[in-house]
């Protein structure tokens, strides 16, 4: 172990000396957290005050557009041209122009003129309001009471629950789970390729630098290969943990600040639900806050809270280690067999294909999480690290995880053994275009 220890140590130190590696370790979580923050931020209404001047040629919308705490509508009788001339110096932020043909016509467009672009939420709000006014107007024109239509409409939530052998049933995560599953599968895909390629390059570096023969006169080629693979594995696990911790901290900070209101609403909503559950129809519904429009957000939040992050993290590590060891030993063998990275193409293809297949199965699972493709994909070692990660949020029986992990680790041992055979011949072979046939012969050399 002493000599393997030295090799592991050198591998780690030489990678840590690489500044891009260090920067990436800290930058990636910031980027991930920043990405999430941006999505949350964008999805929230922007709170910039909007003072909107409405030029309503139909005179129909007067008092029908409702402002809120940061949108105010001011109606004006000016002509559009007139309003536009004075607009830049006025304290209005936008002009909403409603042309005369909007009410009568079957089509037609309303326009917003702005100095600074209004947020997406503002635009949606205005569009919805105009549409609603027109909708109700047209119902009335046909002698239909809008309240009848309104009362006739009922939103229905479709809840899916999975039943197990004992007849227990629980709500499964669908929408969010499929996205989360796919993302963790994709992350696994990236991690395996990234670290696998690191092994590949490290092997090739030693070969092309011609130091490898000096080293294998001190240690067995297999020890060198194993030390390399393990060294980069240690590095990968450390990087994963560091990145995980930073991401967790950042997202916790962000979610507590950005999602504070939503979380409070959710708690209130849960309390109200319990009250309804306890008192039945006697509950004083009038006192309740109306939260119809927030139901979807609540659902996602609840799903996030229901996810077993610890199980997922453990599985991620387990599958990353297994998948990485499996693929990196194959890549080490390839790296040893070629003289230049460009020669490696023909060998890379068969290695990348199963990984890509895993990725596509994971993508397909967003629509069909329980198909036989998903099952076999998560059991067969070539694709299992990626596909199983995508399956995990849907709930996977323990025996399947156990079987898949066992198969993965058994094939890792097989792959490493085979790779070791190719590696020790390959690293000393220069100036020869290697074929698959040639590789298979190396396996049997003494």
């Amino acid at each position, binding site marked *: 172990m002493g000599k393997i220890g030295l090799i592991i140590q050198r591998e780690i130190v030489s990678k840590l000396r690489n500044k891009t590696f260090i920067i990436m370790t800290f930058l990636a979580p910031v980027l991930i957290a920043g990405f999430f923050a941006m999505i949350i931020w964008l999805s929230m209404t922007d709170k910039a005050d909007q003072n909107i001047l409405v030029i309503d040629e139909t005179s129909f919308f007067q008092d029908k557009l409702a402002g809120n705490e940061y949108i105010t509508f001011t109606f004006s009788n000016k002509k559009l041209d007139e309003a536009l001339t004075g607009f830049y110096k006025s304290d209005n932020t936008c002009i909403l122009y409603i042309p005369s043909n909007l009410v009568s016509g079957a089509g037609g467009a309303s326009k917003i003129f702005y100095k600074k672009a209004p947020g997406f939420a503002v635009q949606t709000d205005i569009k919805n309001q105009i549409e609603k006014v027109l909708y109700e107007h047209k119902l009335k024109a046909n002698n239909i009471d809008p309240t009848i239509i309104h009362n006739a409409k009922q939103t229905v939530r479709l809840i899916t629950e999975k039943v197990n052998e004992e007849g227990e049933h629980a709500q499964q995560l669908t929408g969010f789970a499929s996205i989360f599953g796919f993302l963790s599968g994709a992350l696994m895909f990236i991690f395996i390729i990234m670290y696998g390629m690191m092994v590949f390059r490290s092997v090739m570096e030693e070969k092309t630098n*011609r130091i490898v023969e*000096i080293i294998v006169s*001190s240690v067995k080629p297999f020890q060198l290969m194993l030390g390399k693979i393990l060294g980069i594995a240690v590095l990968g696990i450390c990087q994963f943990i560091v990145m995980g911790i930073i991401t967790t901290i950042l997202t916790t900070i962000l979610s507590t600040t950005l999602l504070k209101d939503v979380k409070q609403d959710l708690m209130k909503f849960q309390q109200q639900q319990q009250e309804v559950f306890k008192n039945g129809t006697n509950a004083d519904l009038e006192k309740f806050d109306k939260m119809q429009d927030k139901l979807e957000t609540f659902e996602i939040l609840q799903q996030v809270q229901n996810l077993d992050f610890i199980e997922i993290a453990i599985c991620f590590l387990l599958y990353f280690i297994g998948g990485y060891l499996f693929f990196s030993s194959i890549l080490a063998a390839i790296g040893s067999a070629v003289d230049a990275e460009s020669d490696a193409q023909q060998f890379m293809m068969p290695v990348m294909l199963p990984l890509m297949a895993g990725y596509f199965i994971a993508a397909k699972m967003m629509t069909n999480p329980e198909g036989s493709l998903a099952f076999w994909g998560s059991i067969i070692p070539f694709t299992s690290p990626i596909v199983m990660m995508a399956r995990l949020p849907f709930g996977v029986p323990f025996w399947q995880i156990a079987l898949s992990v066992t198969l993965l680790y058994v094939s890792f041992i097989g792959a490493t053994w085979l790779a070791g055979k190719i590696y020790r011949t390959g690293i000393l072979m220069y100036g020869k275009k290697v074929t698959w046939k040639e590789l298979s012969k190396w396996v049997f050399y003494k």
Partner: protein
Amino acid sequence: MQIMESILEIRNVTKKYSNHIALNEVSLNVPRQSVYGLLGPNGAGKTSLIRIINQITAPDTGEIFLNGEKLNPQHVDLIGYLPEERGLYKKMPVGEQALYLAQLKGLKKAEAKKRLLYWFEKFEMQTWWNKKIEELSKGMQQKVQFIVTVLHEPSLLILDEPFSGFDPINAQLIRNEILELRKKGSTVIFSTHNMGSVEELCDHIALINRSKKILDGSVRDIRNTHRSNTFKITFKGHMLGFTNALWTSAELLDKGKEEEDVHWALIKIAPNTKSSQLLQAILPVCEIVSFNEVIPSMNDIFISNVNSENGVLGTQSNFTE
């Protein structure tokens, strides 16, 4: 047959690859504290044999003994190996790299550092410690490689084509170090096709051709057995008188004119005759300027042996003074 105790014994080693035989029943004895030359044309199997001794590959059949013990993984620490294809990590600092390689050979870090400092001082390269290899010239890199090879004071030093790529100054430096190391008790095996270095350095040689050993022994013995009783005589006088004076068992191989009145002749005499008999025969007819026995150089022996193995006629004209 070996008088000296041998440090390395190779018995009937055969190594086959899928489409050719690299070594065919090769047996060698390397005497302790000798400089042993492993000679042979390119592709003869020298590097294959060296890799087997270094346990980088294993023989298909045959056995190898180091210090009388069957070759085993512990032995790698006793061997220092400078491969023909040699290089170092380009991005790694010199000192750190040398420490790493020394530790792989089983040296403790502190001890390795102490010895490195000694060698760095000896080769006047103290300032290189923190430099990256890619910042060094090729000659400088070669010095580092040599130090790394000998740092753990191996009892068996194996150098594969050590002088290829070395500039004359470094080559001389290495040559001196090889002799120095032998004096201290190391045994040096080196493979080469540079015959000049063989005669200068080696006590023993083995000649390998087409995966077979075709010749081995001490350099002196080999040269003696390759003597062909040929003499080169330079004389003043008439060539006709000179040739007439030769008796029947002396054969005139070649002749020529050096300057006006001075001629030379290449004479081969029968194995049971003495050079003094030849002298007595020609003394009366000419004035002798010089009289030398033509001793074959290692180069000649190498070429004639390889050629006769390969079925090419080894001609006498290959022998030069």
